[in-house]
């Protein structure tokens, strides 16, 4: 099979924190050009999964391949949006500085960003409608604006595979809509996106495929196939009352 068609292949991935496994034997092959939601309850290992894919957490076993190569070889083809809480927003940098950081993967050690890198960063800021704030210190932004800065930084990476950790956390409905249309545009350009998402109600509408996680892979496939009461019950464990409520709510919507 052509490695270009499998942006991400994970085989028997197990990750442990302090010897307690959080992810067991994940096997998944992600096809190209899809918008994929990773859903599951709190503590299911959603963030752990994407961190382990990028080698931020050492796997206890298994391997990860990005376009057929180990992560290190192809790291420049992966874009990352971390959780907003993962950085200190009082840090003395401007919005522009942060977005430029997305270009660093394409620069050599000690090489300065060029005019072209700045131009790319400006374009990315424009896409998320944050160009007017380019010179602001990043702490002087609302939560949704901060999230868009992170998104612009990932866009500046010009990657083929994007991993996003809760990009919708703490943003208002308008920003959420803007982000999702941006993600769809990326998908239409042949990019592959894996997005950690916590809202079941919108999951089916937003994503082509879903990856159901609860310490193990419960299912991976087209969103319509994943959205069955049985699969969701397995994913969300014993909390049946909540689950049936949500499934019903989604059913009413459809």
């Amino acid at each position: 099979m052509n490695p270009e068609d499998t942006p991400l292949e994970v085989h028997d991935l197990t990750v442990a924190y302090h010897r307690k496994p959080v992810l067991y034997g994940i096997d998944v092959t992600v096809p190209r050009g899809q918008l994929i939601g990773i859903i599951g309850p709190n503590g299911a290992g959603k963030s752990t999964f994407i961190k382990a894919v990028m080698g931020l957490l050492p796997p206890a076993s298994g391997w990860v391949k990005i376009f057929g190569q180990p992560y290190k070889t192809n790291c420049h083809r992966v874009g990352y949006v971390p959780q907003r809480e993962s950085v200190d927003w009082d840090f003395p940098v401007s919005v522009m500085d942060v977005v430029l950081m997305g270009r660093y993967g394409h620069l050599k050690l000690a090489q300065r960003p060029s005019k072209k890198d700045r131009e790319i960063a400006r374009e990315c800021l424009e896409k998320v409608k944050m160009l007017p704030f380019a010179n602001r210190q990043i702490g002087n932004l609302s939560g949704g604006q901060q999230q868009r800065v992170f998104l612009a930084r990932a866009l500046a990476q010009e990657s083929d595979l994007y991993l996003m950790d809760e990009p919708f956390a703490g943003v208002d409905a308008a920003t959420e809509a803007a982000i999702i249309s941006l993600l769809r545009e990326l998908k239409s350009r042949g990019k592959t996106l894996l997005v950690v998402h916590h809202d079941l109600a919108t999951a089916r509408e937003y994503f082509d495929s879903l990856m159901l996680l609860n310490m193990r892979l419960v299912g991976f496939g087209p969103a319509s196939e994943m959205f069955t009461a049985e699969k969701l019950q397995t994913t969300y464990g014993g909390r049946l009352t909540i689950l049936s409520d949500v499934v019903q709510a989604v059913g009413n919507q459809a």
Partner: protein
Amino acid sequence: MRRYAPFLLIAAMLLVPEMAHAARISELSESSLGGRALRFFTFQDASLRNALLGSMLLGICCGLTGAFLVVRKLALMGDALSHAVLPGVALGFLWNMTKDPLAIFVGATLAGLLGAGTVQLLRSTTRHKEDAALGFVLASFFGVGICLFTRIQNLPGGNKSGLDKYMFGQAAALGQGDVMLLAVVTALALGLVLVLYKEYALTSFDPGFARTLGLPVSILHYSLMLLLAFAIVSSLQAVGVVLVSAMLVVPAAAAFLLTDRLAWMLVISALFGMASGALGAFFSFVGRNMPTGPFMVLSASSIFALALFFAPRHGVVTRWWRRRSQSARIRRENTLKAIYRVLEDHGFRTEQVSLAELAQQRRVTLEEATKEVAELKRTALVTISPSGEPALTPQGWQRACEIVRNHRLWELYLTHAAHIAADHVHEDAEKIEHVLGENTVRQLERRLNYANRDPHGRLIPGIEDIRAGTATMCATRVPGYGGAEP
């Protein structure tokens, strides 16, 4: 400070006999204060030049490294490392019983790295977090160092070793070799920061993201820690073990208050460090061989205090001043509003407002009302008649209309759009009226279909009324100004 008390006591006991042995410079220095200051500025003797140059270099390299420590939240790491090098200094001295800068440099660097390694080990193998690990390393290494120092003092010739200068620093004792060492370390720090600025900035801000890009995050981190160890060790002679951490943290912390760009923070921090170093050397020299460290730290802390109080954006005094002028503005606007209300009660038939009515409306005493009116006169918003009654000037009228309009539009908006009961909206409008911008007001007007009555049935002054002024208003518009009467 209590944590240090026992160590400081021992250190002080070590120092007392040493005070009698004045260092070389003071023996040939002028007796008067002015004379010594003059000597300082004319750079007559080589040891003084060394002292000054060394102190400034020290300030630069500590300022640069310190800035990264502060943004990485590793400020305490500097403290722990600087204390951890003490046993290394003693062992370096014991190597051949002289103050050989190189032997001491090597010994101290090794001890510092051992300390840093111990912190790392404690963090990764036990349940302890960084703070406990740092505290342990700081105290235990320092304790060992003090024991070794005491040992050396008791050796034959040990009390002339000059090692005590490593405790609180003595810039005057800097030799040619020490200054060379400082120059090399400062050049290294400058070079590394210039070349790898982008990498250091990214790994400080978001190390996780940096790793996903394939950057060698741990190598970068350890290179900074090594630089930190070098900076500390080469600074010891001039500023002392106990206070070198302050030179790492204080200039950087002051710079952080003044800017929100990392590159500027580095520059400002290095400059502050250099200035503190020079000032410390100066005071230490003028004050007849006082220890340099405390003076450097005092200078740095003074700079920090200035930044803390007067920084343009984050300064305590500047913020207080901004708040003060803001509350003065709000007070003025409330007085204007009250004048408007009094005029309104009289159907805008007069221009003068009686002070008693104004005081009644503002719920203040006559004296307070007089003061408020005087304040309005000072800002040309009212004129005062010979009998003391205020009348609005055109600017005053305009501002009063705007405030009343803001207040009533906001009340209307809250009751109509947010469905809040009419008797709940006044308090909120009292605050909002002072901050509504022109654009928001336009939006509110559109949203409310240019309504002209507030929820309590009072008229909302419109743009025309503001342009018209009081006189025209009472002649032509009352009742039913600001558009047709509904």
